[in-house]
């Protein structure tokens, strides 16, 4: 180890390139310091600090959107661990937005629970920073460390409401499933490393057998390496756990139900988007193994759409319902991922879909957070009876959110689905599209069942004696939450009508 190598390594560590992540980490630490320094009466300010700080980071990130690091000559920093791409830049903004919305919902939901609050915001901030690094990682070591930080954060967040047995059960299930998926992913990485690092094979990695560029180069020169095939399949299996695709969806309903509602929203939007960001990167790295990727992902997408929609049909708990419907959304997105292998620019449609999914999901989760009572896991469809009559605003936001998730024109969700299906059509994935359309039709049934519960009065269920009213009391929505929900619903409607400039920008930029 001489001076030159040390200097080269130090010069490659461009900390300025990951300024947003660093600032999130600093805000997270600041929250802990504030908890110690501030008197107890001022602790209500801390969630505000978390949200305002993130809004500041978001504004800074958008102002510096086209950083010099996006230039191909400066793209690789941290010795090739990170690669700054326009896709990564877009996902950074996406994750920051998710994190701000989760913190906003968290400050509403945690006030109803007897639980500590500062730690929640701290963990959400660190997890978001890790997701942002994940979307930019270009090396399996960085990918795994960032992914584990996200996963460990979620273990805690899922079981956060310790007093609720369902939350603890969800945490335990997520822990076991998460550990299993991490081990599959690691085993796959080891196989790829072993194959790509073998100096006897043509095109082996010269310096770093875990760097994505070098692995892609190796795979292109060895199109039928058995060890690498195993590695590719196992890595995909590990990522499939994160996005909740069949056959790795088994944890979804229980974990979504038990987790506090803001965490469910974080899992549904943030964790899934992180999985897809990784998947889009990896599919491009593994492009040489199209022969196994396409049938594998197609089967997975078809099974995911069918299972998610059929299982959601019979749910009465809205958190389980939205979890299983999220499974089917992962299926639609998987079709888009397959299309990337055939059609250039197909990734842009996935990113647009993710944005519409974020807007619609947070609108629905915001209403859920507000309507939920003290027992967060107990949110039945019956609790939404007459919601639209008593609070037309909440009812309207719920209808827009669910309509967008179902893909009803002219809402944003419809355009998102259309954009994902067009490249799939160009790629000739006709039978998958057929299944997807059947899935969309089925999904309308359960989404509208929920809307019906909120808008049309049902026959009152005769109450049995000694059984008190289970429905949590309704309170008017606060100004802050109302503004956020209104903006989300408005954006869902606007993107349905004026999506053209956004799509043009996404296609050009990504």
């Amino acid at each position, binding site marked *: 180890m001489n001076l030159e190598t040390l200097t080269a390594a130090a010069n490659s560590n461009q900390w300025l390139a990951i300024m947003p992540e660093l600032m999130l980490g600093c805000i997270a630490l600041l929250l802990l310091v504030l908890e110690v320094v501030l008197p107890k009466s001022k*602790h209500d300010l801390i969630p505000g600090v978390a949200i305002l700080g993130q809004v500041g980071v978001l504004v800074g990130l958008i102002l510096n959107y086209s950083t010099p690091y996006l230039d191909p000559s400066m793209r690789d920093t941290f010795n090739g*661990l990170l690669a700054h791409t326009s896709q990564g830049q877009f996902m950074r903004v996406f994750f920051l937005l998710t994190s701000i919305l989760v913190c906003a919902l968290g400050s509403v939901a945690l*006030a109803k629970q007897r639980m500590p609050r500062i730690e929640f915001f701290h963990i959400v901030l660190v997890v978001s920073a890790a997701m942002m690094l994940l979307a930019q990682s270009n090396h399996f070591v960085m990918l795994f*460390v960032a992914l584990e930080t996200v996963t*460990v954060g979620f*273990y805690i967040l899922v079981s956060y409401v310790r007093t609720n047995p369902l939350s603890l059960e969800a945490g335990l299930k997520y822990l076991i499933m998460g550990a299993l998926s991490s081990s599959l992913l690691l085993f796959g990485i080891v196989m790829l490393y072993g194959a790509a690092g*073998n100096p006897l094979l043509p095109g082996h990695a010269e310096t770093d057998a875990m760097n994505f560029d070098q692995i892609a180069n190796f795979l292109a020169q060895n199109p039928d390496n*058995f060890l690498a095939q195993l590695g590719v399949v196992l890595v995909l299996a590990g990522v499939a756990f994160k996005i909740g695709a069949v056959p790795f969806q088994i944890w979804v309903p229980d974990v979504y139900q038990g987790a506090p509602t803001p965490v469910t929203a974080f899992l549904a939007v943030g964790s899934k988007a992180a999985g897809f960001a990784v998947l889009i990167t990896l599919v491009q790295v593994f492009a040489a193994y199209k022969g196994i990727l396409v049938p594998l992902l197609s089967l997975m997408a078809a099974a995911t759409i069918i299972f998610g929609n059929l299982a959601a049909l019979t749910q009465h708990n809205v958190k389980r319902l939205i979890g299983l419907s999220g499974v089917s959304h992962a299926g639609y997105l998987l079709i888009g991922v397959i299309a990337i292998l055939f059609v250039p620019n197909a990734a842009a449609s996935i990113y647009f879909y993710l944005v519409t999914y974020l807007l619609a999901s947070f609108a629905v989760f915001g209403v859920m957070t507000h309507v939920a009572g003290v027992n967060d896991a107990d949110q039945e469809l019956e609790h939404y009876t007459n919601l639209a009559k008593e609070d037309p605003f909440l009812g309207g936001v719920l209808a827009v959110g669910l309509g967008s998730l179902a893909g009803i024109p002219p809402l944003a969700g419809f355009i998102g689905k259309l954009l994902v299906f067009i490249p799939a059509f160009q790629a000739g994935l006709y039978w998958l599209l057929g299944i997807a359309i059947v899935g969309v039709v089925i999904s309308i049934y359960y989404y509208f069942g929920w809307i019906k519960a909120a808008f049309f009065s049902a026959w009152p269920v005769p109450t049995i004696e000694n059984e008190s009213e289970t429905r949590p009391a309704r309170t008017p929505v606060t100004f802050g939450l109302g503004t956020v929900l209104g903006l989300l619903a408005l954006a869902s409607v606007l993107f349905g009508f004026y999506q053209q400039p956004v799509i043009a920008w996404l296609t050009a930029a990504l």
Partner: protein
Amino acid sequence: MSDTYFYIFAAITVASALAVVFKRNTVGASLAFLLSLCGVAGLFLQLDAQLLAVLLVLVYAGAVVALFLFIIMLLNMQGGDRPVFKKMTIVSSTIAGALLLTGVYLLAKRPELARLPEAGQPASVLLDLKIYGAKLFTTYLLPVQVVGFLLLIAMLGVIVLSKKFEGLEDVK
């Protein structure tokens, strides 16, 4: 000769891993886990991964299993009655297990495995602890920092999930 060692270590690993699952006494199970880790360390030694073998014994066998034992003894769990499996569970898990075994068997029988090229020495062997440490502080500096945050949130998580918060006024 090295084949004999491989089979000995592999047998130790698999047999004690099975014992972890089947032993009813939790202390015995964690001791079997210790033995299994030692078997894996032996396998690592055969692969010229001395550092990994030493770390496995030091960290897992030395510290983690000791922690397991502490917790088992602190909690003093009495093994309650096990629920009897439903017929459906037994049938489906047998089918799943058979499928898994068939998969592994077919995989091991693949002709590609026999034709795998001999692995040469990698360009840079991380045998030396010094090289390994230098890598952590140069190439892999960022992941090390991220792991620092990982440990921080893990610690906070333990506090949130285990501390009694009744006495705090800031919890409404």
